[in-house]
C-alpha cells in the first residue's frame, strides 16, 4: 500500500525550558513517512533525533514539551489523545525500541513474561497457552529459539537481547517501528545480523520504520530515505541514493566523509619527524610469554607469545568481535587480570610479581583509554583535578604552575581549549570531549605504552576520526607505543603498523594492515570486513549466507594466516 502515510510531522517544534532559557531541541520539523518505507534519522548526539522519536511516543523527558506543530500517526492526532488512549497506542500502533538494548529488559523477569505483559496490557487477560504461542512466534520471527523465553536477560548476549527487543516491538503488528540506534552496542558481525532481522520483519509486516543512528555506512545499507538532522533542524531529506551520491548540505557531506574506509583516504596527518624512542631498558617494552587465560572451562585466550620492542613507537591493533578475547588481552596487559599460564613482562619484569616501586613505574608508563568515557571520571571532581591528580601522584609535578602548564599543553594536544574544559565537571562535557581528556590525561604522564580498548566505539562517528588522530599523534609526535583494541577494521587499517585478528582467543591472521585488512586470507577476517556497512550503494552489505556453526567449521579448518612481522614486533607462531 504505497502512498499511505503512516506518520506525518508538521512544523514539529520541541522546547526544553531550563533556568538558563528555553532550549529548542527540534525546530519546525516536517516529514512524511509512507507505509513500508524505512527512513533513517541521522545526526550527531544532540541533533534532536531521539527527542523527535520520543515526542512521537509522547514520552519526552521532563521538562520537554511540544511547543508547536502536529504529529499524525496514520490518521490519529497523537498530541490530542488522552493518557489512556496514548497508552493503548504505544506498541499496538507505534513501537519504540530504545537505545541500549543491554539494559532494556527487566533484570528480574524472564523474557516471556515481559512479552506477555505487553500483550495483556493491550488485549486483556488471555489463556497462558495463547500467550506462550504469541511469544514463541515473535521470538521465532527474529530467529531466536522458543526456549529463549525462559531465560533471564543476563543470560542473553547483546545481540540476543536486541533481537528480543525487536520481537517485543512487532508483537502487535504496529504501523510504525522506531529503532533508536539498535546496534550501537554490538560488533559489526552481530550488527549485520540484527539489522537484517529488523529489515526482514519490517518488510513482512509492512510497517514504516524509523532508524535512528549516526553511522552513514549503516544507514546507506539499511534504509530507503534519509533525514539529516543538525541542531534540531532537518537539513536534508531524500532517498538514500540522492543523499549518498549527491549530498547537498555541507553537513551531510561531512557525515559521509567522516566514515573511515578500508583502503580509503586516510584521516591522519602523519608527521614524519620520527620522535626519539622512549626506552630505558634493553628488554622489550612488553612481552607476552605463553600467556593464556581460562575462566572455568572457557578458554578466553589461548597461549600467545609476542614481544613489542619499543625501539620505534608502533601501533599494534587487536581486532575481533565481542567474545574474541581482545578485552581479556587488554586486562591481562594492564595487570588487572592475572593470566592462567605464562608471564607478562614489562621491560623484563613480570607485571604480576612486581615490588611497590616497580609497580608504580609500570603504572606510570603504561596508561589506558577505555571504551566508556562516562564511567572514567569521578563525577565529584573537576576536570583539572582529574588531570592533575595522577600527574602529582607520580611525582612529575614541579609546582602548581608546572602542573597547570602541563594540563594546558595536554588539552591543546588533543584539540581542546584548556580554559573551557579544565574548570568544568565531567557531566558538563560531551562524550567526545571526555574521551579526548582521557587521552590528554594519559599523555601528561608521558607513558611508554598506551592500551586503548575500543576508545571510539561510544562516540559520534564524526568525532571518531578526530579522537583517533589524537591517539595517532601520541605515537607520531610523542613516541608512545600503542595497543589498539577494536572491532572496527577500517580504523585499524588506517592507524596501525601491525594487525592481529583474534577469533575465539586465537590469532587467526596477523601482519601489516595493508595485507591483513587490504587483502584478507582467513575466512574470519573476510567475514569481519564484509560486515562493515559501506556508505556506498554499489557495495552491497551482502546476504547472511553463513551461520555461526558454518563459520566455526570453516574457521577451524582454515590455518592461521601469518603475513609477516614488522620490525620491532615479533609475534611467535607455533
Amino acid at each position, binding site marked *: 500500500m504505497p502512498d499511505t502515510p503512516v506518520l506525518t510531522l508538521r512544523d514539529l517544534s520541541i522546547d526544553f525550558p531550563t533556568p538558563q532559557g528555553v532550549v529548542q531541541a527540534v525546530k519546525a520539523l516536517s516529514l512524511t513517512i509512507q507505509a513500508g518505507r524505512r527512513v533513517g534519522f541521522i545526526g550527531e548526539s544532540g541533533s534532536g533525533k531521539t527527542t523527535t522519536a520520543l515526542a512521537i511516543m509522547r514520552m519526552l523527558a521532563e521538562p520537554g514539551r511540544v511547543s508547536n506543530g502536529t504529529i499524525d500517526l496514520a490518521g490519529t492526532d497523537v498530541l490530542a489523545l488522552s493518557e489512556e488512549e496514548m497508552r493503548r497506542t504505544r506498541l499496538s500502533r507505534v513501537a519504540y*525500541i530504545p537505545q541500549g538494548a543491554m539494559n532494556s529488559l527487566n533484570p528480574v523477569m524472564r523474557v516471556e513474561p515481559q512479552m506477555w505483559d505487553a500483550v495483556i496490557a493491550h488485549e486483556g487477560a488471555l489463556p497462558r497457552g495463547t500467550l506462550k504461542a504469541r511469544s514463541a512466534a515473535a521470538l521465532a520471527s527474529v530467529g531466536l529459539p522458543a526456549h529463549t523465553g525462559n531465560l533471564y536477560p543476563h543470560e542473553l548476549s547483546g545481540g540476543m537481547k536486541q533481537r528480543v527487543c525487536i520481537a517485543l516491538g512487532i508483537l502487535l503488528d504496529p504501523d510504525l517501528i522506531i529503532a533508536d540506534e539498535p546496534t550501537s552496542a554490538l560488533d559489526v558481525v552481530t550488527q549485520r545480523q540484527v539489522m537484517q532481522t529488523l529489515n526482514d520483519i519490517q518488510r513482512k509486516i509492512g510497517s514504516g520504520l524509523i532508524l535512528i543512528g549516526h553511522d552513514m555506512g549503516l544507514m546507506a545499507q539499511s534504509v530507503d530515505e534519509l533525514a539529516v538532522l543538525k541542531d534540531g533542524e532537518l537539513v536534508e531529506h531524500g532517498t538514500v541514493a540522492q543523499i549518498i551520491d549527491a549530498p547537498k548540505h555541507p553537513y551531510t557531506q561531512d557525515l559521509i566523509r567522516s566514515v573511515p574506509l578500508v583502503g580509503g583516504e586516510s584521516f591522519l596527518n602523519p608527521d614524519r619527524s620520527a620522535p626519539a624512542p622512549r626506552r630505558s631498558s634493553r628488554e622489550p617494552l612488553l612481552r607476552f610469554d605463553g600467556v593464556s587465560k581460562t575462566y572455568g572451562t572457557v578458554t578466553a585466550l589461548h597461549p600467545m607469545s609476542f614481544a613489542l620492542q619499543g625501539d620505534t613507537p608502533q601501533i599494534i591493533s587487536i581486532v575481533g568481535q565481542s567474545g574474541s578475547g581482545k578485552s581479556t588481552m587488554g586486562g591481562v596487559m594492564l595487570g588487572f587480570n592475572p593470566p592462567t599460564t605464562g608471564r607478562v613482562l614489562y621491560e623484563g619484569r613480570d607485571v604480576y610479581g612486581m615490588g611497590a616501586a616497580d609497580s608504580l613505574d609500570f603504572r606510570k608508563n603504561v596508561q589506558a583509554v577505555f571504551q566508556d568515557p562516562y564511567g572514567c571520571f569521578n563525577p565529584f571532581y573537576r576536570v583539572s583535578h582529574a588531570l592533575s591528580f595522577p600527574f602529582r601522584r607520580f611525582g612529575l609535578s614541579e609546582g602548581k604552575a608546572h602542573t597547570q602548564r602541563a594540563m594546558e599543553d595536554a588539552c591543546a594536544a588533543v584539540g581542546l581549549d584548556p580554559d573551557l574544559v579544565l574548570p568544568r565537571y565531567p557531566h558538563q562535557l560531551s562524550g567526545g570531549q571526555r574521551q579526548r581528556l582521557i587521552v590528554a590525561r594519559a599523555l601528561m604522564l608521558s607513558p611508554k605504552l598506551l592500551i586503548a580498548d575500543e576508545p571510539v566505539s561510544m562516540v559520534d562517528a564524526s568525532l571518531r576520526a578526530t579522537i583517533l588522530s589524537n591517539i595517532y599523534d601520541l605515537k607520531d609526535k610523542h613516541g608512545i607505543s600503542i595497543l589498539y583494541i577494536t572491532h572496527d577494521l577500517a580504523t585499524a587499517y588506517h592507524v596501525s603498523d601491525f594487525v592481529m585478528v583474534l577469533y575465539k582467543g586465537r590469532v587467526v591472521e596477523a601482519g601489516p594492515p595493508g595485507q591483513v585488512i587490504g587483502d584478507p586470507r582467513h575466512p574470519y577476517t573476510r567475514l569481519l570486513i564484509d560486515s562493515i556497512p559501506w556508505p556506498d550503494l554499489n557495495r552491497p552489505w551482502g546476504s547472511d549466507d553463513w551461520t555461526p556453526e558454518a563459520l566455526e567449521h570453516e574457521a577451524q579448518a582454515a590455518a592461521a594466516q601469518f603475513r609477516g612481522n614488522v620490525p620491532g614486533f615479533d609475534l611467535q607462531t607455533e
Partner: protein
Amino acid sequence: MPVIPAAYLKNRLITLVLTVLIAATLIWIIPRLSPVDPAEIALGRMASGAGTVANSDEILAQLRASMGIDGPLIWQYLSYIGNVLRFDFGLSTASFPTPVSSLIAAALPWTLGLMILSLVITFLIGNLLGALMVWDRSPKLVRVAIPAAMVFTSIPPILSGLLLMWVFAAKLRWFPLTGAYGLTVEPGWSLDFILSVLHHGFLPALSIVIVTFGFWALGMRGLMITVQGEDYVKLAEAKGLRPRYVLYRYMIRNAILPQITAFALKIGLLVAGQVLVERIFAYNGMGKLLYDAILNQDFPVIQGVSFVIILMTAISVFLVDLLYPFIDPRIRHDSA
C-alpha cells in the same frame, strides 16, 4: 525454582557459626576489661539488705563460682562457650538466683512480636512512600505530604512516644498508658488476651513506625531515582503497560532489592534501638530487660541479651543469603 546447593548451604552455615562464636567471645572479653567485680556488687546488695554479712569471703567465693568467674581464664572461657551454646547464660545477679535464660525467654516473645511487627509495617510503609515520592504519576498531595511527614523522623522515639501517650492514652483514653496486656486478662491463647495485647501494643508500635519510616523512605527514594532512569523502565512505558503495573513490577521490584538486605541487618539493631520505647511504655521486652540490666550492672543478663541480639542478626542475614537468589536471578547460590 533453583534448589539451594548443599555446598552453598554448608558454606553459609559455617559463616553463621563462626560469626556467632566470634561474637560470643567478644561478649565474654568486654565485661572482663571492666574493673567492676560483679560478685562484690552482689555481696554489696546483700549487705545493704541485711545490714551485715558474716563470713563474706566464703560467700564471695561461692558467688564467683556460680557466676563462672573463678579459676583460670581459659577454663572460664571454655565453660562459658559451652554454656552459651546451650543458651545457659548463668544466673542474673540483680534478680538472683533467676536464670538469665528464663528472663530472656519471658521477654523475647514480647519484643519479637512488637518489634518485628512494627519493623515490617515500617518497611512496607516506608518503601511504598519512598517509591511514591519518585513516581511521576503520584498525586500532588502525596508528593507534598510525604516530605512533610519526614519531620517525624527527626524526633527522638521517646519524645514521640510520650506525645502519643499524652494524646491517645492520657487525654483521649483510646489506648492504655503502659504495659503489654491488661491486668484483668489471663495470659494464654484466648481472644480476650490477644485483643488486649494488640490494644496495648498499638501505641509503642506506632511510635516506632512514625520515627523510623523515614529511614526506609529516603533509602527507597534514592534507589527509585536510579531505577527510574533505567532503559527497561522506558521500554516498559513504550510497551504501553499500565503505569501502576510498571511501578510495581518494573520499578519497585528492582529498587527494593538492596532494602531487603538492610532489613535483615535492622533486625539485630531493633532491640538495642528501641530500648527507650519499651522503657517508657513499661513494655516487658528485651529492651527493658537490657536497660534494667545495665542500670544494675547485671553482667550475665547483658551478655545473654547481647548474644541473642547477635544470634538474631546472624540468622536473619543467613536467611537473606539463602533467599536472595530467589528474588534476584542475577545472584546465584554458587557465586558467593
